[in-house]
């Protein structure tokens, strides 16, 4: 039975990720392990086999495999999860040839797939991986009423399919001036944005009905744009709505209620003004990076919003977001650190880039905590992960050591 299981996982590894073949047995010793699945373990040990976590416990209490490679760290956390980024679509050079996060020819293009634009060899992917990000939710960025699709993938592997977890995760939308059309193109006002979005969702409802009611072989021609929105209507694809101002977040909740769709609020700089409404709507928040520049639509942003979301009991995660200039990407580890420094409880801050992010993305069965049976995605540190002067010493994805340069 045991060997049969092993064989199955071996075959799965073969088909999903060739890197699994190289994954060796690892023993990770740490002065402190933040498992995010239970209490902190002091003087802990993690045993990794076949890309999975096999044992977790205190040193001296587990039987360790003989001859396994042993790594040591001051602190170990689960692999970090960036709940919203554009790395891989947006490149570090910031030139037209490496900027695929936004297509501006139309206001709404939900049919644009992230996987068709993802560059796994992008330097920013290497950069965030070296700073502990093992899984990210990346894809089309803000800047259009509906900019396209997003995906969830591990940060390792040279083929886009390597480590793919969700080829279609969400559909990205934005409300407010950040998504107004260029050169007098619609939408040019908030009201127009909502009118366009409602009309398009109604069109998708009609398309959905026609598809469902059509007799065998007589379904109307496929429309990729409406088809993508049908996923939003039937609840299989959440609409990720970027909104910073209170009024735009209120519009987002109004749309969610009218169409009965799942939404996730992204950005949410003024969320602290409407905590009750967000909580009542049971909408999770992927909050802007803590250090996002506080001007323009974010002029009222605060370093303390994460703490307020936590106090209100609203599920939230932190993100690196989208940057149009420098830094071309932010680093979630440092954004969570800043939230912790401004009052977010330590382990909640860590959860916002691990298990809580995994829950919002629907991948918590596999990643986000250090527990037996989960993917062996681990980050090793020289000290307190949030401290400025601590370094990430090693990063492990699916049991494979993917970064050994201290950063």
């Amino acid at each position, binding site marked *: 039975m045991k060997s049969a299981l092993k064989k199955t996982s071996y075959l799965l590894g073969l088909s999903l990720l060739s890197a699994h073949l190289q994954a060796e047995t690892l023993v990770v010793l740490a002065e402190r392990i933040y498992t995010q699945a239970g209490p902190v373990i002091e003087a802990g040990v993690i045993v990794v086999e076949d890309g999975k976590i096999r044992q977790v416990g205190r040193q001296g209490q587990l039987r360790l495999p003989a001859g396994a490679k042993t790594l040591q760290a001051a602190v170990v956390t689960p692999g970090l999860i960036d709940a919203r980024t554009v790395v891989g679509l947006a490149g570090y050079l*910031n030139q037209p040839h490496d900027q695929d996060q936004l297509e501006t020819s139309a206001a709404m293009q939900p049919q644009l797939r992230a996987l068709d634009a993802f560059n796994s060899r992008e330097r920013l992917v290497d950069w965030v991986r070296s700073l502990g990000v093992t899984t990210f939710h990346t894809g089309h960025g803000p800047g259009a009423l509906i900019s396209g699709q997003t995906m969830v993938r591990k940060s390792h592997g040279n083929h886009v399919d390597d480590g793919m977890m969700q080829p279609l995760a969400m559909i990205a939308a934005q409300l407010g001036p950040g998504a107004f059309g260029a050169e007098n193109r619609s939408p040019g006002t908030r009201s127009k944005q909502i009118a366009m979005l409602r009309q398009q969702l109604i069109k998708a409802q009609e398309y959905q009905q026609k598809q469902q009611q059509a007799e065998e072989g007589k379904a109307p021609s496929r429309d990729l744009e409406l088809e993508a929105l049908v996923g939003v209507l039937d609840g299989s694809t959440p609409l990720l709505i970027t909104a910073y101002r209170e009024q735009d977040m209120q519009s987002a909740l109004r749309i969610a209620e009218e169409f009965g769709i799942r939404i996730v609020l992204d950005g949410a700089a003024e969320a602290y003004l409407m905590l009750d409404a967000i909580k009542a709507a049971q909408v999770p928040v992927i909050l802007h990076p803590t250090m996002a520049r506080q001007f323009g639509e974010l002029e*009222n942003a605060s*370093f303390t919003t994460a703490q307020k979301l936590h106090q209100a009991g609203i599920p939230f995660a932190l993100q690196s977001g989208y940057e149009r*200039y*420098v*830094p071309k990407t932010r680093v979630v580890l440092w954004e969570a650190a800043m939230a*912790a420094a401004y009052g977010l409880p330590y382990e909640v801050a860590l959860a916002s880039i691990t298990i809580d992010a995994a829950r919002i993305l629907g991948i918590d069965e596999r990643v986000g905590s250090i527990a037996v049976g989960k993917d062996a995605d681990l980050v090793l540190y020289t000290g307190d992960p949030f401290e*400025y002067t601590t370094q990430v010493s090693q990063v492990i994805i699916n049991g494979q050591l993917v970064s050994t340069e201290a950063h």
Partner: protein
Amino acid sequence: MRKSVVLLLGCLAGSLHAQPGPQAFVGATLLPIDGPAISNGTLLVQDGRIRAIGANVPIPAAATVHRMDGKVIMPGLVDTHSHIGQVAGADSSAPIQADVRALDSINSRHAGLMKAKAGGITTVNVMPGSGHLLSGQTNYLKLRNASTVEALAIRTESGAMAGGIKMANGTNPLRASPFPGTRGKAAALMRAQLVAAKEYCDKKDSDTPPPRNIGHDALCEVFAGERIVHHHTHRHDDVLTVLRLADEFNFRVVLHHVSEGALVADAIAKAGVAASIIHIDSPGGKLEVMNLLPDNGKVLADAGVLLAYHTDDPITDSRLFLRSAAMGVRFGLDRETALRSVTLNGAKMLDLQDRVGSLTVGKDADFIVLSGDPLSVYTRVEQTWVEGEKVFDLADPEQALFATGGYGAGRDQVASDVLQLEAAQ
């Protein structure tokens, strides 16, 4: 005559802001920067100046005593490159505009100044942007409790408002004519301007002086060594171009950003030129910073280059200025240099090392009270003092709003002008 009036006004402004009696700050760990840390120390301040510092300083009977047990006190931070105050400089009419002064555009009530104080910045070089070969004269400000540029200005011995001049090369100033289209043209335009100004300056005090040219006047101060050139530059070859021009025209220069400084660190050190750099959280964002690495500070310092960090606010947030130095340490810089890089080293780059940058007897009483280690993410700037007067207090909710952000703290910082201009290029 006019000069003496200005001087008098300056003195009046100074006396208005200093607390009258002596003040003793007792019990903190003092980081003087120009000497070793002092535990359980006393900092004695009077008339806006530091009067004594040490472990066993006698406290005058008349002194107001501030208990600072458990706190860390270090000099007010010096930011060598910032765009707070909605500063603008040159317009789009020409690539070189030495006549333009930052002081004529600074909004002294802008939220950016309050945020800078909340970040512990007490001295700041407010500069126009980098979209020109020369975008104007910069202003060295003290972030006093004041609402006019005149009252914020740091004065030279003659009473003039102190400042430098901002130049740039690389891609930012490359634009449609009359701006340069290539690096060669950029250098040629700047050389021609400096040649013309030099001729003007040489004739200025002659019997037949040329008609007054206020742009050339500023460049005469550059040639005289009274006005330091603050030169935006990223790529290694652009850095060398700056050194070449500084050598040809014999002007004092501080290199700013210096993203590929690590590649030419020895040349910078040999020229004896200082580097004011920035910490950015990831590489890239534009082509000429593709090789910006986070250990730039370490490499430059190891080569013997005088090193400072700057905020380039709004590129990085003034409230997180200490973070830049700490990230330098993360990537190899030693702690001592890191702390100097946001204090005394910056002061040297502004010719203000005799007045600010360290807790030294006789220097301005500019200091910050921290909740802990200045290089820790968990440390807060609790108080900021300028010339013996408290200019920021985290305990005051109205001021704390600027420290953390929140509703009304932004008042739409149009300092983003600079950011958008650069991003558009």
